[in-house]
């Protein structure tokens, strides 16, 4: 079926032939005649699951739970299962997936392929770390079972491989006991970004949720003010109710708001209002759905940037250079005076390899209107990032060039080489892989 598909940030769209197999004989008989892109929830910010002229294979019908072992702490499911469905099952049984991105429509396959992080990546690591084994299908290789022990190289390439090694059919992952039936969340005020670093450092070992919201839409001495969101799972009777309706995030329908309600003129007032509404709030009890998936009720936000959309620029600044970087970052933002729609910081701890958004440092997640002014700021940021050993999250930034990414990721060519060795015909592609010249 021909469909128009759009990236969540609104910056890319194309017509694609979409196929939704719902039987194994349909999935496993897909041939190698046409280029394919694998799609899970299809809600990535960037066009990673379509584009490049590929036929899109949507995995949403392969969403069944296959196994649950509370003793070992594992769950196995088909890759099209959404985190929302998986979570509803696990929470009732006192478990959770320790690494979960912020929206329940995201699928297990999407989490593995983008090797995503959760709400306290410093403590919990990346999603790939949870995966024990997975089943991959590639028309030229058939069905393959992958784990660290079996086909380890391919396992390594597939976790964080952006769907380019084939279709993840199912996976077994580690789960963890859930600390409570709701989450106690505190907003801790911070004066600026340096203060945010300090607060995150203090709290990084002790909280289940830990990230910040900072106001980067003002350029005075209060630039970067905001709060750190620190949450811990607790038990309360009765547990607070979750949202009655979960609005659907459907970027492929296009922007609801033709006008951009979030723009450089409205942003300073909007962020000031947001700051005022949230500051000083004492501990609050949040239901699990809102705590695990904070973006669940913010569907409108993503279309409020209007037709041209926005750019999410997420970077990881190495710990050793973060204060020097901060000085230059702030100077650059002040010089450009482009209000930033959302700024959120998290800490990560790990080792950067292949194309993984990983390493030890502080992650800045920034949303900017997709306009010439903010893009000029981002171009300069790219140059600054390259000087500081900063990496940009490939699944999020739709404007990042192959040259910049190659420069930032020391193992970029290693990834491309290993992928080429496994699949010389390069059957799986996407707009992302084309832009990255992978």
């Amino acid at each position, binding site marked *: *079926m*021909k469909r128009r598909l759009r990236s969540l940030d609104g910056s890319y769209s194309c017509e694609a032939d979409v196929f939704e197999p*719902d*039987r*194994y*004989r349909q999935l496993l008989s897909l041939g190698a005649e046409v280029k394919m892109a694998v799609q899970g929830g299809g809600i990535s910010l960037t066009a990673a699951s379509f584009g490049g002229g590929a036929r899109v294979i949507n995995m949403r*019908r392969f969403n*069944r*739970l*296959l*196994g*649950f072992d509370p003793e070992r702490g594992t769950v196995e499911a*088909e890759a099209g299962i959404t985190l929302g469905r998986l979570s509803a*099952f696990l929470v009732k049984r006192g478990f959770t997936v320790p690494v979960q991105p912020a929206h329940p429509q995201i699928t297990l396959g999407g989490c593995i392929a983008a090797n995503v992080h959760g709400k306290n990546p410093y403590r919990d690591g990346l999603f790939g770390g949870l995966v024990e084994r997975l089943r991959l299908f590639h028309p030229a290789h058939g069905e393959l079972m992958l784990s660290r022990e079996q086909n380890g190289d391919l396992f390594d390439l597939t976790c964080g491989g952006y769907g380019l090694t084939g279709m993840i059919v199912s996976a077994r992952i580690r789960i963890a006991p859930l600390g409570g039936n709701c989450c106690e969340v505190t907003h801790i005020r911070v004066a600026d970004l340096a203060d945010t670093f300090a607060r995150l450092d203090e709290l990084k070992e002790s909280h289940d949720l830990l990230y910040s919201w900072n106001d980067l839409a003002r350029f005075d001495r209060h630039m970067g003010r905001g709060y750190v969101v620190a949450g811990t799972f607790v038990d309360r009777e009765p547990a607070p109710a979750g949202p009655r309706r979960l609005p659907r995030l459907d970027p492929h329908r296009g922007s609801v708001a033709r006008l951009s309600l979030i723009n450089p003129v409205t942003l300073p007032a909007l962020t000031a209002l947001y700051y005022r509404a949230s500051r000083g709030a004492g501990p609050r009890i949040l239901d699990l759905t809102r705590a695990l998936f904070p973006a669940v009720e913010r569907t409108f936000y993503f279309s409020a940037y209007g037709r041209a959309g926005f750019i999410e620029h997420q970077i990881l600044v190495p710990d050793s250079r973060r204060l020097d970087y901060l000085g230059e970052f702030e100077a650059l933002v002040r010089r450009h005076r482009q209000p930033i729609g959302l700024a959120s910081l998290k800490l990560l701890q790990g080792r950067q390899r292949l194309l993984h958004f990983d390493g030890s440092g502080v992650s800045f997640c920034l949303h900017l209107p997709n306009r010439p002014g903010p893009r000029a700021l981002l171009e300069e940021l790219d140059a600054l990032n390259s000087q500081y050993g900063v990496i940009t999250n490939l699944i999020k930034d739709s404007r990042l060039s192959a040259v910049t990414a190659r420069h930032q990721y020391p193992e970029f060519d290693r990834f491309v080489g290993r992928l080429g060795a496994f699949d010389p015909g390069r059957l799986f592609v996407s707009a992302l892989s084309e832009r990255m010249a992978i």
Partner: protein
Amino acid sequence: MRSLVVGASAGLGRALAEELARRGHDLYLVASDERDLEPLARDLTLVHGVTVHTHAADLAALDPTDLRAGYDQRFDDLDCLFLVAGLGDPDDSGSVDPVLLDRLIAVNFAAGVRIVNVFLDDLATRPGAHIVGVGSVAAARARRNNSVYGASKRALEFYFEAIRHYLADAPCRVQFYRLGYMATQMFGDRETMLPVARPEQVARAMVDRLGGASGVRYLPNWWRWVMLLIRLLPWPIFKRLDV
């Protein structure tokens, strides 16, 4: 409650299996490919805690006594029999390839009759029992496309009427649905100006009606008015329609 769903691996049959499991039915699921049935059975067992067994068989070559024996090995009694499987084909118009023709009749009609037949005597006397069949709006008025499919579905409906008559004084209910368009593989990519129902929505309506009266119903219900209009269209106009 124990339900047997024929055509349970995808589309409406899968949605029905999910809805029945949600309401606590133990299930016996039939379709042609164990690779689809087994994960569904695992999912329903894990999520809803019901007992699910599967039976992989091609309906076009089904031995109904095998199905019956398989069922009896796993469960004692049957409460609800759902005949959901169906097969359509774009080449089902005019002169049809004989192999396809046989298959369309077998899957859409003959297999259903054979399956009802092997369970009928037990279901007939069982309080609260149901036999539920699935037809199509395609069978409401004959047209050049889907000719064998439509005729087979009409034949199945006719058979259900006969069974309803046969069971008129028995506790077993006989329900038959003329379904409109549903967003499944069978409907595929076709373009239509009419709303297309989600299979989950149709499944819920069918399970809600368990315990209700025997008889024939359109689902979604508004199709009855569309089909009334189509049936009333005079032949000189109808024959010109590209339907």
